[in-house]
Structure formats: C-alpha cells, structure tokens
C-alpha cells in the first residue's frame, strides 16, 4: 500500500529543506520513535525538519505522488502515540517553524507558527499585557500539538479549551495544497467549520502551518487557594458546591497527598503543606483586588463549611511557584515513581468526578496495583495512571487491559468520554470505537477519506 522511502526521495527531500535537515538511519535520535509515554514505538525511515509552509507543501506533494506515509511531530510530548510513525515513512518535525509572526492588538489575536512552544506563547502574551488562556500542564508542548489534540489544561473551567481560541488555521492538505480555514474574525457562520475539523484531528487531516489565536486582556489580579481536606471523598464532594456558588474560578484541581509526595521527591522541593490526605487547588482572577478577594473569600468560607480544614492563601509569585510547579510536575513525578505506566484521560460530567475517583480506588484494591490520579476537578477531566511497579510482562499486560476496560466502561456509564484532552492517537482507538459505535466512526472515516484519499497523513490513528 505504501512505498518505502528510496534514495531519490531522500535527494528530493534534501532539495526541499536542505541537507542538514533530512536525517536517516542512526542519525535519527531514538527518541523520535516514541512520544512522552513511550509504550508505542517505531522509527521513521526519514526525519525531515521543515522551516516554512512552502516546504511542508513540497514535502507533501512528494509524499502524495509517491504514496509515502507522513507523520507530523512537534515536541513529542503527546501521551497516546499520535506522533509515532507506526507505518515508518516520513516524520515531519515542525519545531523549527517556531516564530511568533504577528500581534494584532486591535483584533486581540496573535499569529504563530506551529512549532512555537506553549510557554513561549504564554510569556509573549503576558509581556504584551494579554493572556493566552489555554494552560495544559506540559508547557514545552508546541502550539501545533495543542491544536491537534484540542488541549485543555487547568484554566478550562473559566476560559474553555484550545478550540475556543483558534480563529484561523493555514494548513497543508495531504496533496500539498495550502489552504486557510477560518479567519481573524469573532463570528463565523460560513458553511461547515473546516477549521474546527482540523482542531483535535491529531495530524490526520492536514498539517497546521500557521494559526491565528485569540487573546484576552491579562487579568490584573490572580490568587490561588490551596484547600486541605481530611480525605479525597470530602475534597471531591466540595467541587459541585463550589461550582454552584456561581463564583467561577479559573482552575479547580484536585491532588492527593501521595501524588504531592511523588512530586516532592521528583523535584527535590518541598510542597508548602503535606499534612493532609487531599487538597483542592483553585485560582481566581479578575481586574481588581476587591473582586478577586470577594471570590476567594466566598469559596474559602464555603469549603470550610463543608469539611475543609483550612484554606491557604497563595498570593505571591513565590507562593504560586511553590504550589503550581509541583502541580505541573505530577505526570513526570508519577512516571519517575514506577517502572512503567499507562494513562487514562477520561472526562466525565463534573458531578461524577467523585464517583469515578472512588471507582479507581476500588480497582487499585481489586487488582493490587497503584492507580494515582490528579486532574481538573472543575471540568471533570481526570488523569489516572496505572503503575506497573514490579509486575512481569504478562501480568502487566493482563492487568492493564482489564483495568482500562473497566475504567472506560465506567466513564461511559457515567456519561463521560474517552479523552478530555490527550487525544485518541493510536493507544485509545479501540476504546473510542467501543464507545462511539459504527456510525460516528464511519462518519469520521468518511471525513478522513475526503481530506486524505490516499491515507498518507498519520495513518492508523484516531478512527482507522
């Protein structure tokens, strides 16, 4: 079905992007075979580092003519194997397309190339008194990757997810054609939203080469509250009360003492408080001290009335760093605490978070494995990690599959979905198929075929 990359292809690719940015064989770092989680692995036949939209277009024309599979990769921080070239072929790396092209203060937009890192965009926006609200934990992810997975992050409770901030996308289609979907406008009822099809398509429909993103004015004041609870049950049960209070925090995160301790040991830094079993971490932002103080006090009082032991005020840069840096390191910290792990990124309705977390505790006891978790209690998106620890290959495989089956079944039962923000990629395909059933998957496959009739762009992912 696909052709192998031959010497003539290499020469053609070198002519497009330059000799130094076409790598083959041992010149390719083994890390390019996998993403952040590492379970799915395959080396590309050739690694191509692109610099411009025109280069991407030329590479795709070649790949299309020659029927060579192409997988796009940003920073490689994905967690479901979406950027792994499972059919070999060309791995097209976008990290050199890393320029912030324009800031439009009149229309509150910024135009970026896909290789700009989330942390670079966040800092750029802040320097210009703006906020780019999507705030996934992995700050070294590229914006292209964030758009491809419709990444959410910690501020989704108030500000929504990446999709809500994409105004326009310039993409290269699998046949090499360059197209712009959407525009730098606030409203758009102009036919099917092709831009929205690209967002979250995990590199299967087109290659994002430029994005116009919406910014909001930078809130002048921001305070976090770290609220300790005697146990996770009381902590999680507090969340619906907070949401009902009509105060809208930007973030509501839950964390257990165990996870915090992993993070302490990983970072070599103490967390400000580890005396209690469970914590809720909230952030409030706004433009005046009085407004933010009012919101914070309302929620602090509410939490104290329903079982919180205190509410610690996180109000300076130093304090925010001491708390949020630990939160940002949870994934890496859990990873460092075990031999291998796999993750489940389900999203359930907000009022079912407690039920799901309790269920993971039951599974941990039943299968005798560690299943630490943390996540976005405010939007129902949970990050649950199954740790291999000392299990042998056979037991690990069996246990993991059994736990995944049970967890995804439970999420469906609770009205949830397979992935809140990490995507489907390769690893979660079967669970998606199982949940959605024939028709939705067939519709997705139909869309894929219209965009990519030769199925050369990131084959074997999401719905195929």
């Amino acid at each position, binding site marked *: 079905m696909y052709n192998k990359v031959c010497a003539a292809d290499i020469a053609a690719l070198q002519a497009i992007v330059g000799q130094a940015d076409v790598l083959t064989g041992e*010149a390719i770092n083994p890390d390019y075979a996998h993403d952040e989680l590492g379970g799915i692995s395959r080396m590309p036949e050739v690694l191509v580092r692109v610099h411009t939209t025109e280069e991407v277009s030329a590479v795709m024309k070649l790949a299309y003519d020659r029927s060579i599979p192409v997988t796009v990769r940003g920073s490689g921080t994905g967690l479901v194997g979406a950027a792994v070239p499972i059919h070999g072929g060309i791995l097209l790396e976008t990290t050199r397309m890393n320029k912030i092209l324009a800031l439009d203060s009149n229309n509150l937009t910024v135009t970026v190339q896909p290789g700009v890192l989330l942390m670079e965009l966040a800092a750029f926006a802040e320097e210009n008194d703006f906020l780019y609200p999507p705030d996934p934990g992995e700050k070294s992810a590229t914006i292209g990757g964030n758009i491809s997975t419709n990444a959410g992050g910690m501020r989704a409770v108030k500000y929504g997810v990446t999709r809500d901030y994409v105004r326009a996308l310039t993409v290269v289609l699998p046949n090499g054609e360059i197209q712009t979907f959407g525009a730098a406008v606030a409203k758009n009822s102009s036919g099917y939203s092709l831009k929205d099809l690209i967002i979250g398509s995990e590199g299967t429909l087109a290659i994002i080469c430029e994005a116009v993103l919406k910014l909001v004015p930078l809130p002048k004041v921001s305070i976090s*509250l770290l609220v300790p609870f005697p146990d996770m049950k009381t902590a999680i049960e507090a969340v619906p009360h907070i949401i009902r209070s009509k105060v809208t925090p930007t973030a509501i995160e839950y964390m257990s003492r165990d996870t915090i301790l992993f993070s302490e040991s990983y970072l070599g830094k103490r*967390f*400000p408080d580890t005396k209690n079993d469970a914590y809720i971490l909230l952030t409030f932002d706004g433009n005046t001290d009085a407004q933010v103080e009012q919101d914070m006090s309302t929620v602090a009082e509410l939490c*104290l009335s329903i079982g919180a032991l*205190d509410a*610690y*005020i996180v109000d*300076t840069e130093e304090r925010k760093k001491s708390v949020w840096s630990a939160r940002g390191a949870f994934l890496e910290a859990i990873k460092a605490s075990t031999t291998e792990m796999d993750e489940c990124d389900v999203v359930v309705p907000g009022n079912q978070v407690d039920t799901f977390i309790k269920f993971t505790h039951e599974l941990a006891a039943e299968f005798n494995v560690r299943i630490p978790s943390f996540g976005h209690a405010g939007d129902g998106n949970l990050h649950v990690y199954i740790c291999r620890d000392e299990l042998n290959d056979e037991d690990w495989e069996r246990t993991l599959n059994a736990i995944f089956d049970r967890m995804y079944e439970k999420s469906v039962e609770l009205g949830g979905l397979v992935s809140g923000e990490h995507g489907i990629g390769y690893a979660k395909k079967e669970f998606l198929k199982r949940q959605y059933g024939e028709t939705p998957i067939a519709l997705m496959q139909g869309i894929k075929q219209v965009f990519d009739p030769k199925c050369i762009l990131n084959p074997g992912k999401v719905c195929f």
Partner: protein
Amino acid sequence: MKILVCVKQVPGSNNVEVDPVTGVLKRSGIPSKINPYDLYGIETALSLAERFGGTVDSLTMGPPQAKAVIQETVCMGVRKGTVLTDRKFAGADVLATAYTLSQGIAKCGDYDLIICGKQTTDGDTAQVGAEVAEYLGLPNVSNVLSVDDLRDGRLYLTASLDEKVVSLSVSLPCLISMDGDINTPRLPSYKIRKTLTDDSCAFLTFADFADQNPDHYGLSGSATQVERIFPPEKVSQKHSIEGDAETQAQALYQLLLDKKML
C-alpha cells in the same frame, strides 16, 4: 525558646519602575508583600518552635500600613508582631535601619533567637541582620542553610561560605540570617486571617525607645545617601546552537566557559 523574626514590606513585583526625574521607586499603586527572603526565616522560626517548643513573634519597620505584613506573619503561625513606625525613621539607610530595629528589639523583650532574611528584594544590601546583631551585642551567623539542633543553650547550624559549607554552633541569645531557597515557607491561613484582632499587631514609635536622640534615626542617622536608583540594563539574546548532540554539548560548554559561567 523565644524567637523574633524581622521582616520587611517590599513591592509585590520585581518590575517596579523608577521615576526618571527623581530616581525614586514608583511605589504608589504597586501591591506589596513580605520580602521573600524573610519567609525562609519565618518558616525556620516556626519549625524550630514546633520542634523545640517556644514562641515566635515578628517585627518590622515601616509606615503604618506595614501592619499588613505583620498580620501575614500571624496568618502563617506567628503569635504577634510589632511595627516600628515614626516619621523620624523615614529615609533610613542600612545603618540607621539596623539601629532602629535594635532599639525596637530591646523594647519588645528578651529574645533567645533573632532571625532575619538574607537580604531584601528592594534593597539587596544583606547587611541589616549583621548590623542589628552588632548593635545588640549578639553573636551573629549569616547565610544559614539550616538549624540542625539545639543543645545546652547552643544552636547547631549549617551555613554557606560561598564555596564552602560550614557546620558550627553558636550560643544563645544570637542573631542568624537565613540564606535564600532553603525551605518551602508555609502558606498564610485563611482561617487565622478571619480571626485576626488588633491585638495581633502592636506599634512602637520614637517615643517608646530608650535612645531619644533623633539624630540617630532616619535620614539624619544615616551614614550613606542614595544618589540615584536605576533599573539594571536588561540584555536579552537568543543564541541557537546547531549540530548533533556532541557538537551542541561542546559548543554549549565553550559558551558557558567564555561567559565565565563555569
């Protein structure tokens, strides 16, 4: 053990503008906070009191609104605090500040241990702690990394001497200045903040001090005067190193060597 922690109210942001005409920091409208270095001192003091028993009080010098930082120390677990405030204290340099603090400490009571932060983020001199100790006639240890033990009236410490780390002991009473980034300071409690009363913060003025010579305080008691304050020049450069891992590592090493960072 009776412990006193000295704290200072500083601008809440590091990006405070300097008035180009007067050379004075534009503080108005800028939120303030406890000097971050002092938080390590507060944490050390509270941990020591938990471990060995005792009380922790706090002290600051500043305008009446410096009460806010004293209340914040109370929210972190400090028993009570005092603000030294008087127009006569205004314009104090390092020497006059240290003298004023020493007068205030003498008035506040007998403390076994006085803890200061290493330096402030708005003054950066790192001299006040040692000078307070001198005025009070107390032994002083700077750049303390940890307080390891308390035995027979002596405090056992680990301190940094730039390229060396020393273990030493010092007899109580004494003054120690804590190094930065040595612990994770606890967070202020909303629950305590709700119960704050006026009793948590006392005020002392010039009239309360033993030395009633106004020439020893504020601008007239200062040995130095600030001629000009200006923000440091910021140079931001991006340098890309190309090549394979080995070439990049070698180039990075050479770069750091050339910049005298290694």
